[in-house]
């Protein structure tokens, strides 16, 4: 098969699986899971450093940003303003222009506040950021984000960390069909088969964190996701058989004794 990479803006990613680095037991497990997943990009959060405990290990000691692409996120931000502040700091840290915008609207559902998300996208694009946007699975709002200059649209499958899988396939299909920029399913994927389904539907990639980190064996699950994303993508490219109402025998009837 011809090399089939994920292209976001001018960035080429060898893997269509992007993984989050939160919720792991420790950084060692994070690093092993990331390696097993084959991901070329990982999401990271921006937080205060611990002034008092200088011996605390750092994520950068386990995942070298020179070897794997960091995608700074705005997790925990509930307004456009907070998100902008976080991402400007992320850019200052090491020139990160490709970022994940995530403006939350509600603590219980972690559903995106789309009004603030649209506002922030506009400003970030103007400031030269390459914006990957976590969003609701509303086809019109997804299109609006594209118009505003988002580099990739990342609709949720179901609420963040819920593991409920893709809850609205029709909306997701419409979003995929209408979009000229990559669609990456972000949030809610529960297990490997969910990722395969997303890829078979024609998503360009998936972003997984909890489904790997909260598995009983995160490293094995990371590998499972690697395979499931490849599998789903290949299935999408190959094109599935037509569904029939009745049976169609697999063995020829000619020459039957």
């Amino acid at each position, binding site marked *: 098969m011809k090399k089939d990479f994920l292209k976001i803006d001018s960035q080429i990613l060898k893997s269509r699986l992007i993984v989050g680095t939160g919720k792991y037991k420790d950084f060692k497990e994070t690093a092993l899971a990331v390696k097993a997943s084959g991901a070329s990009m990982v999401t990271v959060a921006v*937080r205060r450093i611990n002034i008092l405990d200088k011996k605390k290990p750092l*994520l950068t000691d386990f995942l070298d940003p020179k070897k794997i692409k960091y995608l700074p996120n705005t997790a925990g931000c509930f307004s456009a303003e907070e998100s902008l502040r976080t991402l400007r700091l*992320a850019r200052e840290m090491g020139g990160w222009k490709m970022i994940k915008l995530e403006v939350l609207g509600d603590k219980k559902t972690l559903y995106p506040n789309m009004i603030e998300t649209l506002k922030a996208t506009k400003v970030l694009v103007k400031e030269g950021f390459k914006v990957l946007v976590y969003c609701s699975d509303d086809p019109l709002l997804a299109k609006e984000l594209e118009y505003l200059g988002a580099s990739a649209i990342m609709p949720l499958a179901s609420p963040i960390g819920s593991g409920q899988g893709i809850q609205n396939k029709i909306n997701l299909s419409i979003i995929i069909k209408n979009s000229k920029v990559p669609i990456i399913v972000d949030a809610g994927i529960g297990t490997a088969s969910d990722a395969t389904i997303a890829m078979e539907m024609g998503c360009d990639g998936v972003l997984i964190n909890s489904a790997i980190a909260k598995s009983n064996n995160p490293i094995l699950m990371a590998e499972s996701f690697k395979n499931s994303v490849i599998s789903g993508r290949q299935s999408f490219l190959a094109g599935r058989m037509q569904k029939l109402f009745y049976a169609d025998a697999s063995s020829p009837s000619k020459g039957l004794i």
Partner: protein
Amino acid sequence: MAKIQLNGRKLELNKKYSIFTLLKKYKIISKKIAVEVNGKIVNKNQYNSFYLKNKDKIEIVHFIGGG
């Protein structure tokens, strides 16, 4: 003597501190962090010349694991 707030903690500085010397005091590697003073980002090339004054609110951030 300047009373500052560093990552939400109140702190008294007994001498004149630049961001560079403050980072040195806490053994923080500047390339792994970003600094904000009173809500404004301070560029890395200003760490030497940016002196902290009374009531400054300083935030030093880095990357941690996240989804």
